[in-house]
């Protein structure tokens, strides 16, 4: 595969995998927590949180990217503070991961929230009467039973992160080796004459990764469902 892809194309694929992996891994605990809060808790500002989580889904990606730039850029309110600790997002692959994570977050939260809502609260009550504290109820009943949704949400988020373009290019530009993920690379190849071949190879990689993710999620989902369903 390394021979088939040129060094520049390979770099884009590796970077995309790296960016999507970290975007997914870091946002997963936060996604589960947010989904649980939206599914089970009532608190002031719940609708606001719900709106904020879903915002990247409905805003133009370029707007999301620009807002990230304003907030997490080196001179932004959050970016400035983080830069003092040595965490820099602007024009780095970490920024691409942040953009991908933010864009994929609503999809992840939606899938997990639906599966948590489908867990019968009566089972959680039963768990509590048997001596499980709320944290143990979550770990031993809610999460295992919501596992199909968590798996689906994770894979969906990963696929979305692989395909993120608008927010990424606005926030962290299109720097080879730093922020040039597969979509940005395809875009860049198409801007230069004779780049169609490379672009096509990356298109094929995209399709393969997306299909693979989908099949994997089906497979895991079916296994988990069989476990939960009995027999």
């Amino acid at each position, binding site marked *: 595969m390394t021979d088939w892809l040129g060094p520049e194309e390979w770099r884009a694929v590796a970077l995309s995998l790296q960016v999507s992996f970290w975007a997914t891994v870091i946002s997963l605990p936060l996604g589960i927590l947010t989904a649980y809060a939206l599914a089970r808790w009532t608190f002031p500002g719940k609708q606001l949180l719900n709106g904020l989580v879903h915002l990247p889904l409905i805003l133009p990606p370029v707007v999301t990217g620009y807002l990230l730039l304003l907030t997490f850029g080196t001179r932004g309110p959050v970016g400035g503070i983080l830069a003092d600790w040595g965490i820099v997002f602007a024009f780095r692959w970490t920024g691409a991961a942040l953009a991908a994570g933010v864009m994929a977050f609503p999809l992840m939260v939606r899938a997990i929230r639906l599966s948590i809502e489908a867990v019968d609260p*009566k*089972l959680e*009550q*039963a*768990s*509590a*009467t*048997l*001596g*499980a*504290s*709320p944290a*143990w*109820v979550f770990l*031993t*009943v809610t999460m*295992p*039973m919501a596992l199909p949704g968590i798996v689906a949400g994770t894979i969906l988020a990963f696929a979305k992160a692989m395909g993120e373009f608008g927010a990424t290019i606005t926030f962290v530009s299109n720097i080879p080796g730093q922020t040039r993920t597969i979509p940005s690379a395809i875009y860049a190849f198409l801007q230069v004459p004779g780049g169609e071949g490379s672009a096509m190879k990356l298109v094929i990689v995209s399709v393969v990764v997306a299909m693979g993710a989908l099949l994997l999620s089906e497979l895991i989902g079916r296994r988990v469902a069989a*476990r*939960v*369903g*009995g*027999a």
Partner: protein
Amino acid sequence: MLEVAVRHSFEGFTLDAAFRAPPGVTVLFGRSGSGKTTIVNAVAGLLMPDAGRIASGDWTLLDTDAGIRLKPHRRRLGYIFQEGRLFPHLTVRQNLGYGAWFAPRDAPREEIGHVVDLLGIGHLLDRRPGALSGGEKSRVAIGRALLSAPRLILADEPLAALDEARKAEILPYFERLRDEVSIPILYVSHSASEVARLATTVVALDAGRVVSQGPAAEVLGDPAVLPAGAREAGAVLTARVVRHHEDGLSELEAGGIPLFLPHVVQVPGSTLRVRIAAHDVLLSRSRPEGLSALNILPGTVAEVRPGEGPGAIVALETAAGRVLARITRRSAAALGIAPGVEVHAVVKTVSVAPSDIGVGGRAISSLGRHSGGDA
């Protein structure tokens, strides 16, 4: 002794109930909507009542005046839910072990092997709940509650979701629980025959209030506390098996009066509780002659309670205990039945259904105090 006092208001319904639950099975008895489940949920901590106190000795679960509201997971109760509520993603073995895992290490606990034997679920241990029948799920749910090292067992109509055959299968397990396990049980039911078979103490509820409470034989013998109306009325007698006859009858004895019932499996000497439905009892002013019915209990009328329709419930004191009879008001007038009058109660042998006969238990009445029926 568990003491419960709860006050809670829902829209259009106010619960204000207080009762005591001595050791054994305390049945909360009443029609649906009388507040039984609300009370059990308050004891379990799944519902926080507006005000109340739930305590047993120095173990306080709830005391709103003192600001004590123990969280459900700190109450150490074994709650047997109506629908079982087994964890579908765990095996039967894991379900059974779930509560024990959270119990304090030094808590007195039942041996898993003993409970598995008691409930006959040894062959199910590696299955998941999805592969169990209704009756099997019920038994696993009982075992799961029992193995969580509880200080009190709660059961909210655990048989209501089962058909008659399954009920007959599960009820004996609750009798064994009562007779072999020393944990007090708070049991919700609206079935008179379940109450008759299981209850040590009955707390009768109506519209969120306690109408009557006390030993089972006393409360069930009181025609005022019949949640399901006169149709379900019936008294409970405690009787000892004397011998089994070759013609398929079993002879029992209650307070010196012989009772003939369809064959029971218990050995002579066992104590049984027998529910006699009020509509199966005839009254006669003189000792009847030439009658096919085998059981005749002489007694004195204690109370006559006219019903809303043409019927009346007559409570008799007999040597065997209190007996209820449901007759028409016309007959009551024709026979001159009034408190103090001597009558004979007549009960057909075949009218006593097997589901109305249960093993004795510990403390239903002062009569024949033998240990459990299987002993």
